[in-house]
């Protein structure tokens, strides 16, 4: 179930293109036409974030030699197909590359025009600056930069109108295509700080979609902004985020921390550099363990707002992300050593040797849990086996139970409350009872994964039903039949889903098909059986 939901959340390239069209109310095409009119035949163009290649193809048809980079392999697959069908292989070259890595992959001064649409608004400010500086180096003398993006309009009234129009558009677009965008503010200043002299070439939709054209300026300000400090504080926001995370953790948008370098305490050039993902809860839990105990640098890498283990297992927290974090942050200017301490649970997704190869920083695998970091550091970066091994204690099982119940509350109980009112409370009680029971006895149930563990759960649930019926309830046969089918379904479901989706239980991801099959069989049994009984 959760897997099906997660799959639905994934944006396909088609979804993305449709989503952008909706959000820009079709003005994206005009911006692309405007950019295309800027190029001359034979010019070398770099498109950062080329997506499915729409603009790259337009530029190539205009006679330009286009290099397109994008971080998403699925987008690039579509772009490649389109280049092939268009017969433009000679003119378009595509690379799978995050924007932050362009500086290392192309020679300085190799492009006449660098273009980018709707990319910078997706990047945190540090990364915007970093990519812009890289772009400045890649431009040939006389070269120019064209950036089209969504912009928060200037002025109070314009902003209010913009927000009022945009909000419903954003919600509808997200529901149809799971695509959303953000809007830049203060971008001309960031362009100027990165060494460009920008002007707004054209703007659409009341100034909320703008095309900036910029040429490298003579001078380049090169000031490092101070590294922000993180402290452990309980605020209204943190309480609300915790509450959200308890029940609806797997429903986006995930609460995120802006990726980048932070300091905890008063670190100096010898202090350790710890790396973590950018899920809000993860960062706060790490800081809570460190603040007041350890002085260190905390490098928050972009893990798409997902916790370390799941993000690493799912390909969102990778060597590329850590490499990008190291480079963008400029952490090497602040410390005298070259050692990163990564969370051990990132090891299933972050290739440590690749990080070393690409950054020159050595990777040490820290403890699995944030609470062991102070002890690990004070022991001279030595771990005990207890720091290595993951357990699933009652406290965490209860947390997992609440996350799962929050999700199924939405997907089972809300529809029941609307469509089948009399079944709402019985199902709620059964779901909560089974979940709580399963949460407590999980370690003692036989079997390696949730589906196997659901067999004893089914037996216990049915035994409970029959004992209750025989001693107190004296339920009529059709009612016993209905409850039997319902409880088997709920017990299998609980068993398979509630183990969480971490690799620890080789989880739900491997089981959801079986859930589907068992659910279908039960539905058939119910439909046939209830007819037979009433007949």
């Amino acid at each position, binding site marked *: 179930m959760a*897997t*099906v939901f997660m*799959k*639905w959340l*994934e944006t*396909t*390239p*088609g979804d993305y293109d449709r989503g952008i069209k909706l959000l820009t109310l079709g003005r994206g095409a005009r911006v692309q036409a405007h950019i295309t009119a800027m190029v001359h035949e034979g010019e070398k163009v770099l498109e950062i974030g080329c997506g499915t290649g729409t603009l790259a193809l337009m530029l190539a048809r205009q006679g330009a030699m286009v290099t397109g980079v994008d971080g998403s392999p*699925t987008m690039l697959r579509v772009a490649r197909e389109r280049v092939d069908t268009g017969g433009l292989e000679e003119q378009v070259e595509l690379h799978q590359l995050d924007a932050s890595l362009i500086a290392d992959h192309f020679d300085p001064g190799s492009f006449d025009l660098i273009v980018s649409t709707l990319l910078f608004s997706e990047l945190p400010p540090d990364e915007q600056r970093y990519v812009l500086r890289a772009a400045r180096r890649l431009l040939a003398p006389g070269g120019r930069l064209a950036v089209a993006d969504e912009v928060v309009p200037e002025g109070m009234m314009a902003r209010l109108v913009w927000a009022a129009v945009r909000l419903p558009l954003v919600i509808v677009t997200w529901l149809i295509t799971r695509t959303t965008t953000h809007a830049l503010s203060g971008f001309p200043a960031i362009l100027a700080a990165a060494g460009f002299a920008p002007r707004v070439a054209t703007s659409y939709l009341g100034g909320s979609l703008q095309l900036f054209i910029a040429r490298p300026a003579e001078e380049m300000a090169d000031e490092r902004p101070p590294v922000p400090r993180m402290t452990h504080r309980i605020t209204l926001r943190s309480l609300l985020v915790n509450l959200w995370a308890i029940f609806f953790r797997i429903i986006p948008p995930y609460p995120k921390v802006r990726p980048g370098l932070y300091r905890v305490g008063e670190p100096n050039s010898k202090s350790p550099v710890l790396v973590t993902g950018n899920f809000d809860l993860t960062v706060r839990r790490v800081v809570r363990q460190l603040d007041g105990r350890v002085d260190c640098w905390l490098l928050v890498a972009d893990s798409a707002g997902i916790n370390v283990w799941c993000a690493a*297992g799912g390909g969102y927290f990778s060597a590329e992300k850590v490499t990008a974090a190291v480079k963008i942050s400029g952490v090497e200017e602040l410390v005298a050593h070259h050692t990163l301490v990564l969370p*051990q*649970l990132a*090891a*299933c*997704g972050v*290739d*440590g*040797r690749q990080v070393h190869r690409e950054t020159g920083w050595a990777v040490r*695998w820290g403890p*699995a849990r944030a609470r062991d970091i102070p002890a690990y550091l004070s022991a001279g970066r030595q*771990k005990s*086996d207890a720091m*290595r*091994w*993951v357990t699933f204690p009652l406290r965490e099982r209860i947390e997992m139970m609440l996350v799962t119940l929050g999700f199924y509350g939405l997907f089972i109980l809300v529809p029941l409350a609307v469509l089948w009112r009399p079944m709402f409370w019985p199902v709620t009680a059964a779901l909560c009872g089974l979940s709580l029971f399963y949460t407590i006895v999980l370690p003692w149930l036989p079997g*390696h994964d949730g589906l196997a563990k659901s067999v004893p759960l089914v037996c216990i649930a049915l035994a409970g039903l029959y004992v209750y019926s025989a001693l107190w309830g004296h339920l009529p046969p059709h009612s016993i039949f209905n409850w039997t089918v319902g409880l088997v379904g709920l017990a299998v479901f609980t068993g398979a889903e509630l183990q969480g989706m971490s*690799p*620890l*239980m*080789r989880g739900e*991801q*491997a*089981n*959801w*098909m079986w859930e589907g099959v068992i659910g279908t069989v039960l539905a058939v049994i119910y439909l046939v059986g209830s007819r037979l009984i009433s007949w």
Partner: protein
Amino acid sequence: MSFWESMFEHVELARKLRYLRIYFDPQRCVGDWTCYEVCPVGCWTPDMEQHRAIFHDAQRCIACGACALQCPEDAIKLTTPGRL
């Protein structure tokens, strides 16, 4: 790729997930022990005398793939039985 196509692709993955296991070639092991450092369930033990790692307790393995990804000598593979 539509939602249904990607769902269908995931059926294959889900099937594979059930049968993934670790294949270890001790001949290639150089005793780097990163596998031991990163295993969250304690499947690996360093053998100090032989200067190599020992994979034991395959029952406990959760097929997370950390050891396979970090092994400097590619001595560890995480795959399904047919694929080796």
